[in-house]
Each structure stands twice: as C-alpha cells, then as structure tokens.
C-alpha cells in the first residue's frame, strides 16, 4: 500500500458516507503530502475546506479504494499538497480566496477567484472582512528569453463562450506557454447553499454548470441522500440515468459539431445541431424542461416521465442512430479536417494520470475511469455498457471517444427506457445530521459532491466539476502547437468555466 494510504488509513475516523473520513494531525497531513510524489501514490480528486478544516479526496489505485481525509487549520495554515502534486494548486488558491486558509509551502499563492472586486474578502470565513484596498492587476507567470511575445485573450472572447483569460506566450506562431486565469464567473454559490435544506440548495447544484445540470444534480442528490441515509426508489434512479445519458449525448453532439465547425467544416455542426435540437425537444416533452433542470432532487425526481415521454425520446433517438455511422464516416473522409485534429493538442497518458483527468479527456489519454462502473451507482451497476479508451491523447482521440460514447449512451437509453422499473419516483429526505459524498459521471467526466448536514440544513458543501483537473491539461496540450490551433484544442476539452468558478 502507498505511504499516503497507510498514513490515512491508520488515522482515527469520523462518520462520512459511504467512506469514513480520516482525521489527520498536522504532522500526519504533512507526511501524507510529502509522500504524494512517490510512485503509486494515490490520485488527488478534490481538495476543499470549511471554516475550520481542509479536506481531501484521493483515489488509491493500489488498494482500489477512495480515501477521504481532513486536517484542522492551524493558525490560518495547513501544509500544502501542491509541491508534490501540482493538480492541487488551483484548489489551494481557491481555498485561500474563499476561506482564508493558507497552503504553507504551496507552489502558487496568487489569488484565483479573488479579483479584488467583492465588497468583502475571505467571504466564506467565519468573519469576512470589508474590502479596504482597491483591485490590483493580476500577476502572470514571467516568460524570459528573446523574441517571445504575449497574446492576452479575454475575459470576453470572440464567440458565445464563457469568460476567462488566456495568456499566450509565443515564439512566432508556436505557443511556449499558456497561462489560464479564471474566476470571472464566481457567483458565491457555495455560500448561498449554506444554511439551506438540500431540497432548496439543489437549485444551486443544478446551476453550477448549466450544460451538466442533470449530472451535478445527481451527484448533489446522492451526497445528500448518503449523508441522511435516504434510499431512492429504483424508478427514480433509472429516470436520473435516462436524463444523464440524454444530457451526455446532447453535449457530445454539440461539441463534436463545434470542433468540426472550428475547422471551418459546416456540414457536421449543421447535422449534429439538428439532432441535438431533436433530443432537447424530446427532453422537454418527457421531463418538462429542455435541459432537464431542477428535475433531479434529493430523494428522487420531482415528477415521473409523462405518458408518451418514452416514445418521444425513442422517436428522437432513431434518426440519430441511423445517421451517426454516416456522420462519423464523413468526419473520417475529409483529410482537411483530420489534418487539423490528428496530432493536435496532445495530452500524454503520463500527464493525464498525474492530473487524474476523468471523462473523454482522460479516456483519450489511456485512463479507463468511469464512475458509472467504479465505484458505480444505481442503476448502472445492473447495466452493461462500453467505456471506450484510446492512447493518442490528441484532438482526434477526444472526438472519437465522444463518438463512441454517443453510441454507448444511445444503447443505454434504449435499455433504460424499455426496462423502466415500476413504482414511486421520490421519497422524503430524512432530516438529520451527517456527512456524505455523492458522485456521478457527467459528460465531462467524474463529478464529486461532498456535504455536511446539521439538523437537516447544509453546514458545509463542495462541488467538484471534472474541469478542475482538465483545465490545467489544456495548458499543457497547447504547448508547442500553433496559436491558430487553440480554438480547436480548447473545444476538444470544452472545460466548464462556471463549474470551477463556483
């Protein structure tokens, strides 16, 4: 077993469902952090905080288990994980901006969500302070050497896209470094959720990242259900999966179209867009909302699928099933298109592993991670489905993984809809206190939610979008590519801005 795994497993625990949380002393946390550079050390999945503690979720591949650990913040500090685990960096910056806990020895202590614009500082700490000093311009990593030039892009980009800043340092056409700065969309979501019942707070989980509204709602509901010991009826779990798979297909369709569109190939976005619209309309018929927002709630789903909803969805799937093979052949048949995607924006399997990237970003770079399979959750544990994996890690591989996932999800949808279990679709959430972790596999990958309930209300919560571990890989993927390939590369990742800006 890894050193970190041993340190964590021997520490005393506090109740958290389904995995106990290990309470580490400062020294133990420091030793755990120091061992994260060893071969076979666990992957970092999330790092977050509340007013008194810092929490980490790790995956120990050796012991095939997930580990939750926490340590008390001592005098405003805790030992940083980022020196041995660079993927902790953005989390540490976020924790500092929201709660004021400093990662001592951290690789990067610059502000992240904090742009100097909120009326208060450390907004989630016990005592937020009124802001006194005005905003300062952000500091970027230095680039030294002759002939480098910088291209600042954003926060407002050229298209209908979320805001963020990309700072390219280029040598001629070639990108030497991309630095991403986010935080423009920070809405204070976590603070708004505190003190509310899970049922009320579900509206915020549904709006963390609109394109993943279903999967985030599922992860949140499952965390609340784990914390309160509630079990949802099988029909509710199956309907959640129907919505999750519809969401996955709809997003893959628009992104595959958009990638081709960025290579000036208009036919594919036209066709994929048409199928997407058909799916969204079917979703509106079946569940009352095109994006299926606010349908999944703690305890189940708000309403059963309407009579005729199943048929509406099946009617929308049929033309897509028919046309998909041909659309993939079209993608395959144009060298001008493949020329742009093959070999562009490579993420090596080693790097994807180091950042524990999930979803199509991970699967295009050799990582066979899918939460529907391991650790699994209902109803996927009784279903067979393909999890495609490739090794190339380029734009093309990410596109092909998505094509394969569309096919797999279409099969899942048919099975789910035909075998919908009978029965109720919701149960009241048991009120009480407790801590829980919930997960779901959204179209971008692994989603993790954690929360602590106190007398039926949320005392603390964190929602980890897959993009946290994918954005930094985009910085790496564009290295040594030409600036003009960035849109294509970016689209092939399609990370969420709102999802990480919280």
């Amino acid at each position, binding site marked *: 077993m890894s050193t970190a795994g041993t340190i964590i497993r021997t520490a005393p625990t506090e109740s958290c469902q389904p995995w106990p949380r290990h309470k580490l002393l400062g020294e133990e946390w420091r030793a755990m952090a120091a061992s994260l550079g060893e071969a076979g050390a666990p992957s970092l999945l999330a790092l977050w905080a509340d007013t008194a503690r810092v929490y980490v979720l790790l995956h120990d591949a050796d012991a095939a288990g997930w580990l939750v650990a926490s340590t008390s913040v001592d005098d405003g500090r805790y030992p940083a994980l980022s020196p041995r685990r660079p993927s902790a960096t953005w989390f540490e910056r976020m924790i500092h901006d929201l709660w004021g806990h400093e990662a001592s020895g951290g690789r990067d202590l610059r502000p992240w969500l904090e*742009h100097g614009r*909120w009326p208060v500082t450390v907004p989630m700490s016990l005592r937020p302070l009124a802001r006194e000093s005005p905003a300062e311009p952000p500091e970027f990593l230095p680039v030294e050497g002759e002939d480098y030039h910088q291209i600042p892009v954003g926060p*407002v980009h050229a298209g*209908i*896209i979320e*805001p963020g800043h990309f700072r390219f340092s280029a040598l001629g056409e070639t990108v030497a470094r991309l630095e991403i700065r986010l935080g*423009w969309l920070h809405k204070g979501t976590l603070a708004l959720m505190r003190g509310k019942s899970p049922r009320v707070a579900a509206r915020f989980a549904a709006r963390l990242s609109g394109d993943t509204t279903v999967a985030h709602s599922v992860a949140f509901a499952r965390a609340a259900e784990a914390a309160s010991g509630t079990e949802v009826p099988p029909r509710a779990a199956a309907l959640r999966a129907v919505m999750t798979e519809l969401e996955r297909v709809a997003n893959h369709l628009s992104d595959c179209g958009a990638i081709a569109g960025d290579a000036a190939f208009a036919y594919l976005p036209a066709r994929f*867009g048409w199928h997407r619209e058909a799916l969204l309309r079917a979703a509106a018929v079946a569940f009352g909302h095109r994006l299926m927002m606010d349908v999944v709630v703690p305890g189940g789903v708000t309403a059963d699928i309407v009579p005729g909803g199943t048929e509406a969805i099946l009617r929308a799937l049929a033309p897509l099933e028919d046309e998909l093979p041909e659309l993939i052949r079209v993608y395959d048949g144009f060298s001008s298109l493949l020329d742009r995607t093959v070999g562009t924006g490579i993420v090596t399997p080693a790097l994807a592993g180091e950042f524990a990237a999930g979803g199509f970003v991970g699967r295009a770079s050799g990582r066979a991670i899918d939460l529907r399979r391991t650790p699994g959750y209902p109803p996927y544990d009784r279903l067979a489905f393909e999890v495609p994996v490739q090794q190339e890690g380029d734009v093309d591989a990410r596109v092909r993984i998505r094509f394969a996932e569309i096919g797999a999800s279409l099969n899942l949808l048919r099975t789910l809809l035909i075998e919908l279990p009978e029965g109720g679709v919701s149960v009241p959430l048991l009120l009480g206190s407790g801590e829980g972790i919930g997960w779901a596999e959204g179209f971008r990958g692994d989603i993790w939610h954690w929360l602590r309930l106190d007398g039926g209300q949320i005392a603390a919560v964190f929602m980890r979008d897959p993009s946290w571990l994918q954005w930094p890989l985009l910085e790496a993927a564009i290295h040594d590519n030409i600036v003009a390939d960035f849109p294509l590369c970016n689209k092939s990742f399609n990370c969420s801005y709102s999802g990480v800006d919280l």
Partner: protein
Amino acid sequence: MVWRRVLATLRHGPATLPAARLDDAATRRMADRLEAAAQRTLGRSLAIRQVDAGSCNGCELELHMLNSIVYDLERFGLRFVASPRHADVLLVTGPLTHNMREALLRTWIAMPDPKWLVAVGDCASDGGVFKGSYAIAGGVDAALPVDLLIRGCPPAPAQLLNGLRTLLEANAD
C-alpha cells in the same frame, strides 16, 4: 459522401422552422422605446455581441441553438459578431458578477452609438437564484440600462428568437 447527404436533405425540404407570428403589441411597445433616428440608420439588420456576465452557461447553450439550422437566426438579418466595435446590440446573460462588471462596461463602451442592450435569462433580470450573493451585482440593470428583457431559465430558442425579432421589427417600422 457529403454530397449524397446534402442531396438527400434537399429532397426533404428545409429543417428550419417557419417563422412564428410576432405579437404586434409587443413590437409596438418596443418601437416606442427606440429612437426614430436610430431606426433609419440601422434598417433591418442587427449585429449582436454576446457577453456572459456570470451565467451558469445554460443560457449560452440555447443562444447557440439560434445559429443551428433549426432556428437559423441569420435569415432575419440578425447575427452574432465577434467584436463589439461593429455591434448594434449587446446581449448579456448572467447575474452580473462583480468580477465581470468592468469587462461588461468596457464592451459596452467599445460599441458605437446607437446601441441597445438585451438582457437574457432570469439571472440577467434580477440575479435569479443568485440574488443576495456577495459576488453579484444582481441583474444587468445594476450596471447598464436594459432595452429588452427575455426571461426564462434558460429561455428556449423560440422565445429568444421572438424577442430579438421584436427588436428588429420595432426598429424597422
């Protein structure tokens, strides 16, 4: 292979939805709000610059659908443009985060007169579910005057299209 597909689609007729009838009263109300001089300047075409001022990205998903072959925004003379410098309309989504305020104002300033502002979504209307957060201003009108508000969370493409066409029709009267 593509040509064969394109021919097949031609045989089926357009995938684009026919234009819905607009509500005349709403068009008149909008016309009253627009200046006569501006109406003559712009004719029947509007260039739209979109800014996400804190959205969850749900509103963007539906805005994207306007460019799909199903809604085909451009047939009405409406199009999304990359630069505010040649835009007539600023279309804003999101509850206006404090962090986005300056970028939004700078985009607005970069646009030539006459110009209009369209707020899209419940968030842009008054902050939506994020109302009361330390991080948001609470609706786009906290920073800029709003000419047209299209509500919804998110508004469906058909609603967006009708709203934008009202602006265009009122402008051309």
